[in-house]
């Protein structure tokens, strides 16, 4: 019995949670429970991010998605949650159709994902140091937020290291997209506020 690789174990755990709750979102008809399962699913996804070594993205996922977006969503649910809308049923035929097509899509995606040999996972190492490596592979030991922050400022430090010489050309920073996105966000918020305001009945 070879020792269990805990990185993989936690991946399986979080992956299973993510998938199960995602499916739960689909099959539940009560919209509030849908929101709840969605939260759990996205939280587990954040866990997967941490496992993939992207702790900043994971924290962002928790903060913006789970903290912000979903609160908005639940807010909307509560604003519109009246008897008939809490749970809306869908016809059996549509379910079957969607299930068949979705199943086909799923099969194709998974098949495609596993068809690339380089993605099958890191080269299997002997298990003892393999465990060390994956213990070390836990995100906390690798600073990721600083390169990301610099990347947003237009400097790509992660492309400086000689290990990835072939990536060095095109030190593409993300300053402009960053600005665009921030302005876009501002516009969006104003627009949302405008859209969502209740119309005043003005006569004449």
């Amino acid at each position, binding site marked *: 019995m070879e020792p269990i*690789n805990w990185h993989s174990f936690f991946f399986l755990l979080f992956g299973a949670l993510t998938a199960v709750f995602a499916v739960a979102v689909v099959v539940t008809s009560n919209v509030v429970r849908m929101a709840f399962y969605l939260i759990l699913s996205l939280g587990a996804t954040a866990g997967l991010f941490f496992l993939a070594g992207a702790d900043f993205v994971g924290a962002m996922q928790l903060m913006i998605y789970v903290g912000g977006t979903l609160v908005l969503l639940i807010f909307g649910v509560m604003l519109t949650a009246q008897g008939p809308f809490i749970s809306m049923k869908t016809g059996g035929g549509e379910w079957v159709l*969607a299930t068949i097509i979705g199943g086909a899509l799923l099969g194709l*995606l998974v098949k495609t994902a596993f068809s690339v040999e380089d993605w099958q996972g890191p080269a299997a190492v002997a298990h003892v140091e393999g465990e060390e490596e994956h213990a070390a592979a836990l995100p906390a030991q690798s600073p990721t937020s600083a390169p990301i922050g610099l990347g947003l400022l237009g400097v790509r430090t992660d492309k400086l290291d000689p290990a990835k010489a072939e*990536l060095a050309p095109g030190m593409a920073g993300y300053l402009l997209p960053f600005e665009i996105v921030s302005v876009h*966000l501002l516009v969006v918020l104003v627009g949302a506020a405008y859209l969502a305001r209740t119309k005043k009945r003005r006569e004449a």
Partner: protein
Amino acid sequence: MDLLTQPVGVAHFMAVGAVLFVAGAVCMATKRNALGVLMGIELVLNGANLNFVALGSEYLRRDTALSLGADGNLIALFVIVLAAAEAAVALAITLNFYNNHSTVDVDRADDLRG
């Protein structure tokens, strides 16, 4: 079984991402509640995000030189932010729709039907 003893790879993350994506698509296709459709969209975006992060990760592939590096994380960040924006607008639209039609059933939103 050897999933427990072998290190997982990008493909495994992508499999989970695929589940998320398909779940989201089916959710969009089957829910009549506009907010349900919104949640489906969130699921789809997360599936895509998972792929970006996995591709950007250093630990998940044989040849780490090929990984997207910080690009993966950055794109994932943009996706998250834009998803937030999208959620805000979509929510506003939904509320507006609810004010005018007093329902959130997307099947009733077919005023422009040909």
